[in-house]
């Protein structure tokens, strides 16, 4: 072993100083044991090192880099050898920040994937490899008492969302959820959410249809439209309310909201519209009267009202 760098820690706060030492050993073949040790930071030779001979005859050089200003720095311990500069050892120093507190944690129960999907804001870049873990436990009452072991949900690298599978959930009981961020400089925890999975269920939008006039169905009045809709099939067991919004296809009119509406209607006449005008219609539903999240708006249905 010709040279060995030692660092107090391979990771420091960005902007903090770091002191390193390098010891060169006398029994390194071809090396003049009295050589002067030189330091390179990246590719730049560094001033300001102190060299001394240790009791056992080895040479030790110590250097303090006042301010680490880039997240990745290579420190090299070198000696002159003839006309060339020889690298004997190299160490990577990482500089960054401890993880900020993850915030804006929110969760939705997805009935398609049958999982509770939570997402959060990670906070500013720490320049260090930072791992996020979504943690949770089931609880009675308002999440003060922990009922069972803490569950860890590991997001894929670089992603700020995680899905807790159905088998780890009690859909109608409280659970406490938070995010933990961890890197070499520390750990931080988001505020805890206390929620019941089914109370944050987000449904898929209902399906809207035009109701073709038929013997049983009289044609719509002027300025009216005939519609029907059905909730998203996998949510049939959930009592819901829905909202309809419409606006003329042309022009700048804003949406007009109609609701609350039943989640299923075989025939609905929407009136108060301009005659022989094309309207764009959308609908969304939410679990009700039990709590839930509004679905996205359904794809648009474009219908034209009857003439006067």
């Amino acid at each position, binding site marked *: 072993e010709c040279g060995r760098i030692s660092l107090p820690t391979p990771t420091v706060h960005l902007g903090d100083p770091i002191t390193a030492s390098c010891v060169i050993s006398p029994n390194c073949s071809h090396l003049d044991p009295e050589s002067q040790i030189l330091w390179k930071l990246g590719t730049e030779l560094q001033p300001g090192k102190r060299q001394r001979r240790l009791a056992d005859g080895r040479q030790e050089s110590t250097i303090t880099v006042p301010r680490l200003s880039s997240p990745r720095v290579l420190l090299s311990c070198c000696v002159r050898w003839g006309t060339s500069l020889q690298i004997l050892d190299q160490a990577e120093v990482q500089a960054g920040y401890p993880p900020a507190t993850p915030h804006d944690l929110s969760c939705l129960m997805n009935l398609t994937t*049958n999982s509770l999907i939570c997402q959060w804001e990670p906070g500013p870049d720490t320049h260090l490899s930072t791992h996020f873990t979504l943690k949770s436990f089931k609880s*009675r009452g308002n999440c003060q008492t922990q009922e069972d072991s803490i569950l860890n949900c590991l997001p894929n690298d670089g992603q700020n969302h995680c899905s807790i599978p*159905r*088998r780890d959930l*009690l*859909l*109608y*009981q409280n659970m406490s959820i938070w995010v933990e961020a961890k890197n070499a400089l520390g750990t931080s925890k988001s505020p805890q959410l206390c929620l019941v999975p*089914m109370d944050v269920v987000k449904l898929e939008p209902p399906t809207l249809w035009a109701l073709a006039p038929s013997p049983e169905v009289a044609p719509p009045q002027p300025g009216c439209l005939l519609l029907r809709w059905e909730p998203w099939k996998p949510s*049939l*067991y*959930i*009592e819901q309310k829905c909202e309809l919004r419409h606006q003329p296809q042309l022009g700048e009119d804003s949406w007009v909201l109609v609701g609350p509406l039943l989640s299923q209607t075989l025939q609905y006449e929407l009136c108060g519209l301009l005659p022989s005008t094309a309207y764009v219609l959308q609908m969304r539903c939410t679990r009700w*009267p*039990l709590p839930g999240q509004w679905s996205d708006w359904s794809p648009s249905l474009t219908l034209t009202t009857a003439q006067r």
Partner: protein
Amino acid sequence: PLGPTSSLPQSFLLKCLEQMRKVQADSTVLQERLCATHKLCHPEELVLLGHALGIPQPSLSGCSSHALQLTGCLRQLHNGLVLYQGLLQALTGLPPELTPALETLQLDIGDFAINLWREMEELGVAPAVPPTQGAMPAFTSAFQRRAGGVLVASNLQSFLELAYRALRSFAKP
């Protein structure tokens, strides 16, 4: 304990009814899969086998319209759910194409039993000792598991149908 004509907290009742509908939907999916993949579409063709296998059917006498009694009905409903958890557990080993449907049903019934028990505790109507599943039938062949699946799912539907009607009548007037 609650009187015969007491009513249930609205929020609990709504969640209870929703869960019942969810379990019924799950069990319909299992029945449809058994019919599609193994042509076992009629539980009435398997009654004899059901007797021979000794598939128990839980009582809901406390929930019948002419003898409606809230505490008794809730306890019988919970006992029934625990029994069906055991029956579904005994069906483990159904072919892979049925496993997702069976697992969803097992999870949802498990959830429902826990919620009902906790609510009964809060209402002060839970028995001192939680019920146990008791002896379960042994399904010794692939066919018996499939036939057992049809019978258990069908019995569960009727069980929940009766319980659903009873609970609706406990809603606040």
